[in-house]
């Protein structure tokens, strides 16, 4: 008997004239069938679906590449891993093994870093909320406390005076770098003199040691020039501190915010074509810092808190097709088992989504929905995908940043997270949640325990 022909769901696609862009559309969705040599099918059969997968090789490569780029432009560079971007222990550990310090914005992140073995002096403690207990701990452990507002400054003065302690502090400075939105809710403003007031207040107190200046001008920055402006403004403050107080700062922390290669919703061109490279960010920052009239050995350490640009492309979300259907408009709708509760970033990114298996060259415009019984659970309202069968898999790329910190248990539990190690083995780095995990935190009053 003759061998039967390969089947693909019948598709008919209508042509629309006048709507094409001059760059054309993706001819066909090319499959992403493996991650660092490990087949997607194998990952899902062993660890279930949906599944977050991280590549150790990619993380290390991103970190080494970024460090090399900055070190070839500026003599002293130190990265501090931004915990809020991804604080899974295994992820943080890879960055710490690569020499990164920890940059935390809450007490629990601080404690997490300490439990991972990061020394207090290698922790940068940012953020608008640091409890008195957290401040005391950070002061005692010689952490670098970045002060956000005057109330915090006075609280540190109070603690150090009462207990006769010395605190290593820096201030966060906000400023106009010509970009919108201007992040002026964090730190002290440069233009209105507030930052200089804070510096003078710190330097007038014997228990506070001003060791650095910090800024973080925004997130997913599309302009490298803004960093040059920011560096120049911090350099002006550093120069003022040197001239008036004869103090050389230990470091200037330029924060993070470098864009990754994720394309924003509504962005016309793909991110790869419009986002500045790490080289451009490094050029802008080092050019700004070299305005400081100091000898090379007197130059402050440059600290970077880059998060997204170092982890986004190392994370994948694997998902499985649950059903195909048609919307009332005739548009194809695909329901998958990963929802927006796992992919918070789908509210602002147009993720790259590829089938995990070979498929035909014909594609259909499809809306991609998650499994939640909520209208908001839409991963993409229009993506060209080939005919997919129930049970086939899709790979959602560039999900390393923020998705596994901003995810939530909502209708569905959070799934397993694995890491493909450099040697090709696969390690579970966070277990999926179950009902016991959920109920463990709940308390039911005695008189509500009987259900008829």
């Amino acid at each position, binding site marked *: 008997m003759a061998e*039967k022909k390969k*089947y693909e*769901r*019948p598709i*008919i*696609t*209508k042509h629309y004239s006048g709507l094409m862009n001059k760059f054309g559309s993706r001819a066909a969705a090319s499959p992403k069938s493996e991650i660092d040599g490990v087949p997607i099918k194998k990952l899902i059969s062993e660890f279930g679906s949906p599944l977050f997968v991280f590549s150790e090789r990619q993380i290390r490569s991103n970190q080494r590449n970024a460090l090399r780029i900055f070190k070839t432009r500026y003599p002293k560079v130190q990265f501090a891993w931004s915990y809020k971007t991804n604080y899974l222990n295994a992820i943080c550990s890879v960055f710490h093994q690569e020499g990164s310090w920890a940059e935390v914005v809450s007490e629990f992140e601080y404690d997490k870093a300490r439990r991972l073995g990061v020394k207090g002096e290698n922790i940068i403690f940012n953020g608008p909320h640091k409890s008195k207990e957290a401040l005391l701990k950070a002061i005692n452990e010689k952490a670098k406390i970045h002060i956000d507002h005057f109330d915090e400054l006075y609280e540190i003065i109070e603690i150090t005076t009462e207990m006769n302690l010395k605190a290593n502090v820096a201030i966060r400075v906000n400023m106009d770098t010509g970009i919108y939105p201007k992040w002026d809710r964090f730190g002290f403003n440069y233009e209105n003199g507030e930052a200089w007031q804070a510096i003078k207040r710190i330097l007038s107190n014997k228990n506070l040691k001003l060791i650095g200046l910090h800024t973080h001008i925004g997130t997913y920055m599309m302009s490298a020039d803004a960093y040059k402006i920011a560096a120049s403004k911090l350099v002006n403050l550093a120069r003022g501190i040197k001239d008036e107080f004869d103090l050389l700062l230990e470091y200037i922390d330029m924060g993070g915010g470098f864009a990754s290669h994720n394309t924003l919703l509504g962005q016309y061109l793909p991110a790869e074509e419009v986002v500045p490279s790490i080289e451009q960010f490094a050029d802008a920052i080092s050019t700004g810092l070299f305005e400081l009239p100091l000898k090379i050995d007197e130059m402050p350490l440059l600290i970077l808190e880059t998060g997204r640009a170092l982890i986004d492309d190392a994370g994948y979300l694997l998902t499985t097709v649950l059903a195909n259907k048609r919307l009332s408009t*005739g548009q194809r709708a695909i329901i998958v088992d990963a929802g927006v509760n796992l992919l918070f970033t789908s509210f602002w990114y147009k993720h790259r989504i590829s089938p995990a298996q070979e498929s*035909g060259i*014909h594609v259909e415009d499809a809306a991609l929905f998650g499994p939640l019984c909520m209208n908001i659970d839409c991963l993409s309202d229009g993506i060209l995908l080939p005919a997919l069968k129930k049970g086939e898999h899709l790979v959602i790329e560039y999900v390393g940043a923020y998705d596994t910190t901003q995810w939530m248990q909502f209708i569905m539990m959070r799934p397993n997270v694995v890491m493909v190690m450099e040697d090709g083995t696969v390690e579970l780095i966070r277990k999926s949640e179950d009902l016991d995990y959920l109920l463990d935190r709940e308390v039911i009053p005695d008189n509500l325990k009987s259900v008829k």
Partner: protein
Amino acid sequence: MTKFEIPGNVAVSDSGFLFMPTTGETFTMNEMGIFIFKMLQQKYTRNEIFEKALDEFDIDKTTFEKDFEDFIAQLKNYSLIKIS
């Protein structure tokens, strides 16, 4: 029994390019779409199309039934078929 009727003036190439002269609309179909559409043009019945598809292609009846109904619904949506 359900009868399918494709408008007589619809032109389909072997590569799946479909032209509707009365409206000027154009479409493309994949291999399976062409297979079904051409049989519909030749007035094959639903059962005959099923028999031929299951015989020639590596597919089970349930999946083909779902996909066939979806394809017919698409043709209807584009006014490329009359169902009686």
